[in-house]
């Protein structure tokens, strides 16, 4: 549905050159909810803007629904309006001087469609109903709350019946509770219409909750494209793993197959085929650590000291000192720990990456 081939973009900032996109290639299939996940400055917004046509890449080709909408070599650059897309902006970009209904109908009446007003109003009512905003149709848009503006923005994007819906961090301006609610609404709505969505965010939870597939972007490059579970469980690199949530890290050197020397001692790993003396990086997610008050004399078990704890309501983070390094254990049970505990690193949960 969306094909991005070898897209690069270079900006000149003063005398410096910034390259937000380096030879990006991606394919989004029809009906997919595809999330671009990346930290700020990773180039994800630029990529979305290139797909929308608001930005022109310096290299590469982009197709939507089998039609080339941009190609450097063929000298094609379609107007955003000719690409069959709907877009929800980060700021929502609700026109504050118009009513809710007019926000939706203006593109229908004055845009490519040139719909007669009567039909446009009908269509507008229909999409506003879809986002449960039909009751507030005549309200001035400037009087809407953040969540309501967000819904109107979605309705406006859907009103022109786009093939592809582009969403630029649409939840980042909502407060935490509303965010979860709207997130589920977006998920249900897009699934219900069956539209292809390209969605960008820096929030890994949002990405995992929404995506049918995730592409992780960093420094203008695609680092991994995979199912949400895969990206979380088998990140392709140290960088991707960090993006998907906080981790405990250990640097180490391979002694022999399956055994690694680290600052806290020798650690057994499940990964095979590493060369002796390879410098590697071991990562383990906070919740995968096993902590007990007494030693079980198992594999990869190390004595640790509890330094502090952070109570987060539904979860608790214990800050541990294991040998010379610090680690964090995330648990969902509020238990009393003695000063000295034993931390175990389950072999199968340890992620192994090439060292830096």
């Amino acid at each position, binding site marked *: 549905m969306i094909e991005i081939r070898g897209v690069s973009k270079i900006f000149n900032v003063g005398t410096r050159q910034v390259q937000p996109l380096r030879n990006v290639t991606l394919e989004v299939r029809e009906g997919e909810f595809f999330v671009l996940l990346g930290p700020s400055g990773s180039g994800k917004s630029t990529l979305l803007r290139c797909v929308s046509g608001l930005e022109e890449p310096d290299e590469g080709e982009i197709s939507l629904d089998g*039609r080339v909408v941009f190609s450097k070599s063929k000298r094609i650059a379609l107007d*955003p*309006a000719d690409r069959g897309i709907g877009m929800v902006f980060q700021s929502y970009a609700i026109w504050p001087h118009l009513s809710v209904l007019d926000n939706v109908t203006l593109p229908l009446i004055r845009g490519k469609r040139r719909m007669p007003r009567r039909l446009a109003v009908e269509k507008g009512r229909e999409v506003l109903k879809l986002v449960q905003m039909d009751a507030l149709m005549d309200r001035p848009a400037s009087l809407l709350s953040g969540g309501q503006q967000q819904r109107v923005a979605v309705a406006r994007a859907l009103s022109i019946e786009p093939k592809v819906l582009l969403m630029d961090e649409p939840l980042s301006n909502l407060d935490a509770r509303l965010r979860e609610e709207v997130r589920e609404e977006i998920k249900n709505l897009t699934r219900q219409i069956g539209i292809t969505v390209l969605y960008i965010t820096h929030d890994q939870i949002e990405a995992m909750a929404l995506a049918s597939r995730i592409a992780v972007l960093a420094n203008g490059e695609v680092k991994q494209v995979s199912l949400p579970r895969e990206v979380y469980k088998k990140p392709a690199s140290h960088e991707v793993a960090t993006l998907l949530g906080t981790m405990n890290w250990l640097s180490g050197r391979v002694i022999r197959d399956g055994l690694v020397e680290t600052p806290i001692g020798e650690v057994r790993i499940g990964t095979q085929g590493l060369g002796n003396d390879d410098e590697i990086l071991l990562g383990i997610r906070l919740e995968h650590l096993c902590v007990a008050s007494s030693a079980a004399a198992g594999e990869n078990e190390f004595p640790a000291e509890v330094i502090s704890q952070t109570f987060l309501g539904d979860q608790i983070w214990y800050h541990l000192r294991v040998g010379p390094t610090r680690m964090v254990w995330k648990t969902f049970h509020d238990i009393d720990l003695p000063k000295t505990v034993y931390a175990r690193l389950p072999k199968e949960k340890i992620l192994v990456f090439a060292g830096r």
Partner: protein
Amino acid sequence: MEEMSAELRPARIGMIPHLRFSTRHVLLILSTAPAFVILFLVGLILWVGLVRDVNSGIFSTGVTLDHYRALWADPLLYRALFNTAQFALIAMAVAFGMGVPLAWLAERSNLPGKGIIYVLMVSGLLLPGVFIAMGWVFLFHPEIGIINMAFKNLLGLDHSLVNIVSVPGMGIIQGLNLVPVVFITLGPSYRAMNPAVEEAARVHGLSLLGTLRRISLPLLLPSLLGAFLYVITIAIAAFDIPAIIGLSNRILTFSTFVYISANPREGLPNYGLVGAISSVMIVFALLSCWMYVSVLKRSYKYAVVTGQGYSSRLVKLRSKTVVGVWLLIGLYFLFTIVMPLLVLVWASVMRWFQPPSLSALKLASLANLHDVDWSMVLAGAKNSAVLMLVVPTLVLVFGGAIAWIVVRSRFQGKVVLDFSAFVPHAVPHIIFAFSILVAALFLLQKILPIYGKLAILIIVYTLAWLAFGTRVLSSSLVQLHKELEEVGRVSGIPGRVILWKILLPLLRPAILSSWLWMALLTFREFTMAAMLATTRGNITLPIVIWSYWSGGQSGRASAVALIGFLILVPMVAAYWIAGRRFAVLGATRA
């Protein structure tokens, strides 16, 4: 079909992407045309300063540095420049000495009746300097000034108390006239300063003086410096007060020197000399312009400090202080607005000016109004009206195009556009008038005969206000999220519909208030008109007054000035009403 043709359209490897061919080109032409004319006029001045003899041929007589050598030899010019420096320094001292504390009082203290100060300040800003200068002559002229004469009689002095027909005298009047400018430019920076930064200093043990020296002053310094550079360009270029008060007594400043050199009583104008001194002036102007911009950049950096959700805590004044402050403010407005206007009324009913007295009152008549050449007044009023309608509109069209390109596009040349739009602010307006005069007389006489036509004023006014118009529009455009336009483009709304249905309605407060403001500026403009309004076809109301005044008919001049004032009052009122109405919608102030 439509999709096919869209696909076949070649890529726009353009500098301003994503706009349809026509919109893009219209924008480019609208923004580059005025910039080109501005740069051309500046270039022309530099050239005129080098040409041996403009009168015998602007391109054929060769190049020389004689005019620059003559600059050092001309005692009149030498004197004029010295006067200008003295005049500007005194004006600055007065303007800042009053404007800085007044702005502080209005923004940071609990002084009652602040609203009135704003009204008075803006009115002071809009009242034509010509009117005030005439009023001051009637009040403080060493021979005929009412107050001077009263004191002479009262105290038996043989000399006058105050002599305004002097460089310091004119400087003080100019300074008083510039107080509103200082007030308006500094007010926002006082307002924007978060009191928390001062409070933090106090909490952490700095003394009041230490806080002032180490926190408040450094934070305000950029805006103070910016205001200083802004106001000094106005002071150096000032024309109306030096013209009304100084010219007839041969006390010249830069602007009046340019004026009499371009319009000599006898002989041919010495264009070369004016060109040379104007070139020197342009270099200075661009230098201060560059400084102003770099200072402004710094003040923006500081501006980030202001957080949301703080309310400026006001300094409490003691009631004695309040009375004292209001007394001073009252005196200020009495002397800068009320008395000059009252004395103009008196002068307009006197055939020959004399101090007010009962016996003089018996001579009061409307003879001046009767003797005024009404066809000339009507011609002036008509021309002024046309200018007021046309000029602000043109400025908004051109300035809007420049602002949009500077704020929204990645057009490579936008720095040049931004710079050229700023030039008319820095370079004295009289130089622009002189340049277009030379262009009209020696370059355009065949192709575009604008000399003596209203068109020449339309062009030069539009260029002169361009700096203001561009800045107002770009500062409100910056505040409009660009996604508001982008979502329109993505939804397929054509550029011109985005302009009419989205941009213009959202910018309406800024457009309306700046249009009215420029209309008022156009009405009171005197400097450029004095150079260029030479016929009935392009005479303006202030020039009608000026021609009576310089012809020695002060009574008739006063009568016409009063007519002008009566026209001005409802317009200022309209400006206030519009301002208040749109302020509710979050008007963006310049």
